[in-house]
Every structure is written in structure tokens, then in C-alpha cells.
């Protein structure tokens, strides 16, 4: 990473700083609702938290990747002394760092609230990590599709499918015997299934990033 790539990342961050702080504030409220542990408020908190994390990813990708092409600011960025691959690297790294920081802050806060709450069983922690991991992988998929396809339509399709898939994924994971058996228990249990799913999510993120770089490196026309 050279100095100009970092300048481009800082540029994207400065444009999104306000909304991201707002989302983190809403995320903090959602986590507080989860911490109350009462049924309706708990579930509302979960829905808001998941929505906020999804929105952070969508805002980051559409605000820094799709908008650059749509608003025709891409030629301006590519007129700087960077190659297209360096530009791509700044977009991937900038988005990953931005999303990771928000995701990590909300994930750590969520896990601390679960661990510290008397109303929420600690057995829920592996399930929460898996679901939050799926949100990260969905973000990486959206980022990869947006960068590679350069198509707003495809990005919207992926975004929609991922959003619909969240509740299906949660139900599917929750119904796995190895997960379900320990979810309501007072102790956090990491078994081969839960660790395997988290590892698969991490691997998927790594593969998506690598494939994105590979496909971008094969492009000949950048505008």
C-alpha cells in the first residue's frame, strides 16, 4: 500500500464518517435493548442490530464503490498516479477496514452484553458469533460483486438475496442439533460444528477477496 492508496481510503472514510457514527449509535441502542433481555425488546434489538450491520455494509459499498462509477468520479480517481489494481486494493482494504471496525465494535459489545446479562444464556454466544460472521461474509460477497461486476443491478440482487437469506440462515443454524443443544444453556460451548462454521465463514471472506483481486487483474478496460 502506498501513500496515495491510503489517501484514497481516507477520502472514502471522510465522506462516510457521519453516517457511520450514526449507525454505530443506533447499533449501541440495539445492543442495549438486547441487554434488557425481555422478549419483545430483545427480539427488536436483534432485528435492529442485524439491520444496522447490513446497512453499514451496503452504505460502505454503494457509497464508495458503486457511486464512484455512477457519479463519474472514477476517471478523477484513476487520473491520479495509481494503477487500477492499486485503486481496487484501496477500495477492498478501505471497505474491509471500515466495515471490520464497525462490525467488531458491535460484535464485541453484543458478546459482552450477552455474557454480562442475567437474562440471556451464555450458550447463545456461538450462535451469535456465527450469525454475525455470516453478516461479515455477506458484506464481503456484496463488496466483491460490486467491484467485479461494476453493476448496480447485480449489487442490488446480491444485497436482496443476502438480506432474505439472513433469517433463513439463522433458522437453519439454530436448528442444527450441535448448535441447538447448547444454545439455551448457561455455558458457552464451542464444538466442532460451531467452530467449523465460523472457520468456513472466514475462509469464504478470504476466498472472495482473493477472487476479486484475480478477476480485477484480468480486466483490460477500467472505464
Amino acid at each position, binding site marked *: 500500500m502506498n501513500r*496515495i492508496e491510503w*489517501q484514497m481510503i481516507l*477520502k472514502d472514510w471522510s*465522506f462516510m464518517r457521519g453516517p457511520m457514527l450514526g449507525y454505530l449509535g443506533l447499533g449501541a441502542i440495539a445492543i442495549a435493548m438486547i441487554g434488557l433481555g425481555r422478549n419483545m425488546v430483545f427480539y427488536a434489538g436483534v432485528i435492529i442490530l442485524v439491520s444496522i450491520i447490513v446497512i453499514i455494509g451496503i452504505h460502505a459499498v454503494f457509497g464508495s464503490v458503486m457511486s464512484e462509477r455512477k*457519479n*463519474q*468520479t472514477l*476517471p*478523477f480517481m*484513476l*487520473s*491520479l*498516479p*495509481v*494503477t*487500477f489494481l*492499486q485503486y481496487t486494493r484501496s477500495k477492498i482494504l478501505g471497505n474491509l477496514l471500515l466495515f471490520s471496525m464497525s462490525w467488531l465494535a458491535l460484535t464485541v459489545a453484543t458478546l459482552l452484553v450477552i455474557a454480562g446479562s442475567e437474562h440471556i444464556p451464555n450458550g447463545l454466544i456461538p450462535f451469535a458469533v456465527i450469525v454475525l460472521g455470516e453478516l461479515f461474509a455477506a458484506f464481503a460477497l456484496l463488496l466483491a460483486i460490486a467491484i467485479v461486476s461494476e453493476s448496480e443491478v447485480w449489487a442490488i440482487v446480491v444485497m436482496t438475496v443476502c438480506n432474505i437469506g439472513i433469517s433463513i440462515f439463522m433458522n437453519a443454524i439454530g436448528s442444527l442439533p450441535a448448535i441447538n443443544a447448547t444454545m439455551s444453556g448457561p455455558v458457552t460451548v464451542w464444538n466442532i460444528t460451531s467452530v467449523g462454521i465460523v472457520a468456513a465463514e472466514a475462509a469464504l471472506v478470504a476466498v472472495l477477496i482473493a477472487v476479486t483481486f484475480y478477476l480485477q487483474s484480468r480486466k*483490460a*478496460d*477500467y*472505464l
Partner: protein
Amino acid sequence: MSLAIQMNDVSKRYAHFQLSSLDLSLETGRIMGFIGPNGAGKSSTLRILMGLIAPDSGSVRVLGQPIPAGETRAKKDIGFASEDMRLYGHATLDWHMRFVRSVFPQWDAAYADKLLKSFDLVREQTIKGMSHGQRVKSQLLLVLARRPRLLLLDEPTTGLDPVARSEVLDELLDVLLDDDRSVLFSSHNTADVEQICDQITFIDRGRLVTTDDKETFIENWRRVRFEVPAELDISGLPTVVTCRQDGSVGNLVLNADDPTAAERIRSAGGTVTATERMNLEEIFVAAVKSNRLEDAA
């Protein structure tokens, strides 16, 4: 003689368009007007020079750097502005100036301030609040204040009102006082090109039609009006670009001041009624039409 731009046998194929065997060179310190109709390949050529499009074949060197291998080194000294380039709408011009300054250490703050005044721009104004002319001038300010050795300007005056166009061209003329600075200025507006360029290249349908010094074009090209009793035979007259005849009256466009054309008219029993110089637009139109007729034949 050092070359700011050197393209050799460059080709690029698209589904419905092709740049064919482009050979283009620009000497350091020269200002080339790159004229062509819409869709002629001007923007594609400039994008290849910027490394934004990879050619299918051929070689490209810009400021001594091979493109795309030396793209980043070349781009440090290239100022690129194009009609389809936009700045960030919600950011101010001042933000853009600070951003470009952070990337280019050679940013000339005093010159940027001078350009702000001469372009009548307001630092604190957001780009989305600007008129088209102000946006174009902002773009040029960001390019010029970097003091690049090569300017690649893709239709920078398109859509500008006469006052804004004059301001932009005046500033470009000032820039061109520096002998080491080279400019490739693409446009379909021949008046702008005629005003600031010393070298002209015509492009049409992805192929270079002709290239020469502006003065050579203006000096050499002629329209010869004539009257002859029968159809004029122009075979064996290599300088005739086009010939139009309606009854006994017609005109020839010549790409050189060639007395043999007048002799041919007289030997056919006719008379030359006028010999006129042509402006760049007339030369451009004649050259393109002739090129298309040759293609069709």
C-alpha cells in the same frame, strides 16, 4: 527531439468500434489539437494514453514511460481532464484542492489562488452547487495547479458558454508559454483548436486521417472554384481531396497549393473563378469526407 507521446500501431477492438493501427506522436513543448467527430475514437485514444484502457496491440510511451508498465510514473506528470469526468458533488472545491495537493507534492498553491481568481471560483462552494462552466474550470484548476508536464484534455470546452470558453482558452494559452509543457487537446470544436494548437491531427472512425502543423494546413489547403463546359477529369491529380461539380460550375478542395489543378481546368476549356483559403473546420470536414469516400470505395 524528445517525444511526450508516442503511439505505434495501436489497435483496440470493441463490439461496434475499432481503433485501427494508430500512429501518433507529440513532440515535447507542442500543442496538438486532436479533432474528430463524435465517436471517432478521441476519448479512447486519450484513455489508452492514461492507461485506463489496454490496447489489443501496439506500443504506447508517454513522457518516456511505457504504458501501462510505467503508468504511475507517467501519471505523476500528466494532467488529465475529460468531459465525462466529475468531481465529488457534496465536497467543496477547497476539499478537492486539499486532496489533490496531498497526492501531488508539486502543487503550486500560489498558482491555484491565481486560477481561483481568474476563473472566478469560490473555494468554499460545493461542486453540486456550481454551474457546468464552473465545474469544468474547477477541474482544470485542479489539473493546472499541479504543473504537469503533459496535459491530456478530452473535450474540455464542450458545453461552455462563450465567456467560460474564453477564460479556459486564455488560461491554457498562458500555460503553453512554458516550452517544456505539451498538450493533447481533443475536441470537435475546430475554432477552439485553431486558437491554441500548433499541430493538428484529424481522426475519424478509429483511424488517423491526417496530421500536420496548423500553419501548414492553413497555408496549403485551397478551395478552387471553377467553371468548365464539360465534366472535369481529376484523374492523376494527387492533391485533389474532393471535387464537386454541378453542371458547369464546381469546386475542388486541394491539400496543397498545386498549380496543375488550375492548368487542368484551363486545358478543359474552363476558368478558375476563385481560389480561397480554408479555415480549419472546412479542412476537417473535407478531409473526413474524403477519407470516408476512400473507405467506401
